[in-house]
Every structure is written in C-alpha cells, then in structure tokens.
C-alpha cells in the first residue's frame, strides 16, 4: 500500500506540490502530467529524497520522512539518465556497491552479481568500462543495480526516454512484470509515454502541483489528452 495524506512540498519558498492524497494498492501505478507539474517531486517523496512540508506519505507501512534508511532499502528508484546512476567504473563493481550497501555477506556477492548480469543480458560485459555500454545496456544495468537489492517497491522516473523501440519495449515489459514476473510488490512509473501508462493498473494525473485525477488509466489518460486537443 502506498498512501499520501494531504502531501504538500515547498522548496525555497516555491510551492511545488499541494494537497496530494491517494491510497494505492494496485501493483502497477502510472504517473502522468505536464513538464513541471510535480511528478518527479511526488515520486521523490516516496523514498524520502524529498520530505513533504505538509501531510505525510506511507509506503508499505514506512514513513520515508521519518525512517529514510528503511524507506530506501524497501523502495528502489530508477532514474531516466543512466549515466548518473552508474557510479562505478565497471558493471560488476557497480552491482557490488549495491550489494555492499544492502549488507549482503561478501561470500554471496559474486554469485548474486553473476546472476543479475545474466538476467539482463550483460553476462559477458561485467568487466568492460561502464561508459562503453550502449544507452540501452546502461539503463538495464541501472535497473539491475536497483533490483539486486530486492526492493518491495520500485519507482521509475521516465525510464524509457532515449531508448529505442526494442530497448523501450524490453524495459517496459520488465517494469510491468511481463518478462519474468513482477519485479516488486508495487511499481510506480512516471512517464510521458502514454502507451506505457495505459498498461498500468491505475494512473495519477498531476497538474500544477496538484493531483487532479486518479483511477482507470484509460479514463485518466483520455482526460489528460483532451486538455491538449
């Protein structure tokens, strides 16, 4: 369950979110809305990167503002720019970093790492410089680094930008759990790709820092599109 109760955010005196309330128990949640409407800010409150200035958030029983450490191990976050997420010189080192942070015993690290690389088709690229991977491979590595910690909730902020049709489809299928089962108990996908949003179980529509609609993706999207007609 992801719960927001009257969530408001103000940064440097600027109002970014106000009065956002929702109760979400669907496994796949889409977040849509215009540039600057507050989607990313809302997503960030869910793992404590941003603390609400009013109201409160609860993710799987955890309040990220109060227990940021616990929230971060329960909630994995995938960003849109893979370069900013790959923090170590090689894929293996990058995955090892995640495992270390998760407190996995040293002995298990190599096995889990090899498994994760194989799952995302990176088996023979573990030791090549990460920056020499293609855009699609980098984004898959970033997802691997998130999933290797087995988060209960995954949040993806525009995960398919810059990806080609094949890579975007693969990423979408993975996130939606259509490739080899659900990747987490709940997945939140912030996206401008309305076809991707349509395949979720529920959609939230943000405008000007407000949650203006939530419900069946088909209806919410239709309403959003109508604004621009």
């Amino acid at each position: 369950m992801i719960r927001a109760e009257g969530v408001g955010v103000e940064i440097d005196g600027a109002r970014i979110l106000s009065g956002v309330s929702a109760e979400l128990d669907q496994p796949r949640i889409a977040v849509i809305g215009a540039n600057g409407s507050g989607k990313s800010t809302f997503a960030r409150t869910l793992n404590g990167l941003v603390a609400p200035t009013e109201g409160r958030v609860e993710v799987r029983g955890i309040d990220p503002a109060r227990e940021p450490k616990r929230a971060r191990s329960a909630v994995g976050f995938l960003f849109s720019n893979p370069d900013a997420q790959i923090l170590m010189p090689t894929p293996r080192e990058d995955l090892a970093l995640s495992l270390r942070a998760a407190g996995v015993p040293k002995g298990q690290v190599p096995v889990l790492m090899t498994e994760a690389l194989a799952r995302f088709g990176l088996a023979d690229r573990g030791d090549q410089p990460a920056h020499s991977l293609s855009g699609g491979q980098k984004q898959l590595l970033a997802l691997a680094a998130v999933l290797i910690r087995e988060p209960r909730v995954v949040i993806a902020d525009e995960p398919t930008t810059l990806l080609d049709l094949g890579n975007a489809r693969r990423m979408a299928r993975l996130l939606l759990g259509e490739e080899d089962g659900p990747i987490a108990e709940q997945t939140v996908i912030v996206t401008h790709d309305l076809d991707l949003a349509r395949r979720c179980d529920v959609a939230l529509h943000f405008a000007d820092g407000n949650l203006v609609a939530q419900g069946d993706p088909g209806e919410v999207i239709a309403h959003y599109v109508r604004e621009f007609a």
Partner: protein
Amino acid sequence: MIALYRSGHSLLHRTPAGWKLLGLLVGAVTLTLLPRTVWTAAIAFASVAALFIVGGIGVGAWARQLWTLKWIIVLLAGTQTIFLGWELATANTVRVVAVVMLAALVTFTTPAEETIDVLQRVLGPFRKFGVDPWRVAFTVQLTIAVIPVISGMAARIREAQIARGVRLGPRAIVTLLVMALRHADDMADSLTSRGIA
C-alpha cells in the same frame, strides 16, 4: 582511462604495495642525503635501471618513461650548469631522474586497487578527524567512473559551439560547470536512493 600499471608476476609485482611504498620513501631520502657526486648519481641511476629489469618492465618502457622527463632534464641541467657548474648539474639532474624512475617503477608494478587499500589503511588513524577511509576510496572510484562522462560533456559543448558558429574560448567552461554540477546532483540522488551514502 588506462592505468599505467603493467601486469606481471615478477618479484616486484609480488611484493606487497605497502613495502614498495616504504622502499620508495627510503630510497628517495637516501639519495637526497648521499654525497652529490657524479658517481653516486650514476650508481643510483644504474640500480634503478636494474630494478626495471627485475620488475620485467623492459627497456622500451624504461626509455619511454625517461623521455617523459625530457623537459625537467633540460630545465634542470640547463639552469644548473649556468649557476652551479656542469659536475654538480649532472649529479643533481641524474639523481632526480633516478628517484622519479624509481617511483614510476612502483606505479608500473602495483595495481590501482592495492594502492587504494594501502591508502585506506594509512587513512585509518584520521578517523578521529572525521575522515572516513571507505568514503575516500569510494569518491576516487566515483571520479574514475565520471571522467568519461565529463569529457563527453566537454565534447557536446564543443559541438554545440561549432554548430552555432560561435567560439567562446574559456567562457565555455561555465557551461561545462553547470552541466557537471547538475550531473553531480543527479548522481547524488541515485547514491542516496541506493542507500550508499
């Protein structure tokens, strides 16, 4: 970024990094204290060359390393000959070159990870002052990963200038700084989300 380390299995490669660094320090200090004659300098130079053979580094790499020092050699030898006379100039220059070559040899035979390990141990006592050795090592790795990204940004900015038909000169560094700092903040979000720092 290709490291200067050269893999191998020589005696020097097998010697622990800490010992090699200690040896380098002792060697450098000894050479500074030894009497400054052409002969001591020549012996030091020859010994280092011999160590290159022991380390299995080869004459080619030795010569290339020497070549990278060409400017220092010219500068030192040149001015010192004027002020101190040729004998002292030769002794001093050869001695400096010997120490630098010895240090290079340590670099050639020690993998980066081993040096980072030594560094973490050396930094241990500084914990009291708020230095976290693991964080230092981590930041070093982060830097290695981000060098190609920053150099890619520099390339994008160069292209944008060319495409727009403008030449900003050093002014373009501001754009690079802005992109780099925003990138740093994105990385920080990822770092925090992954529970690392």
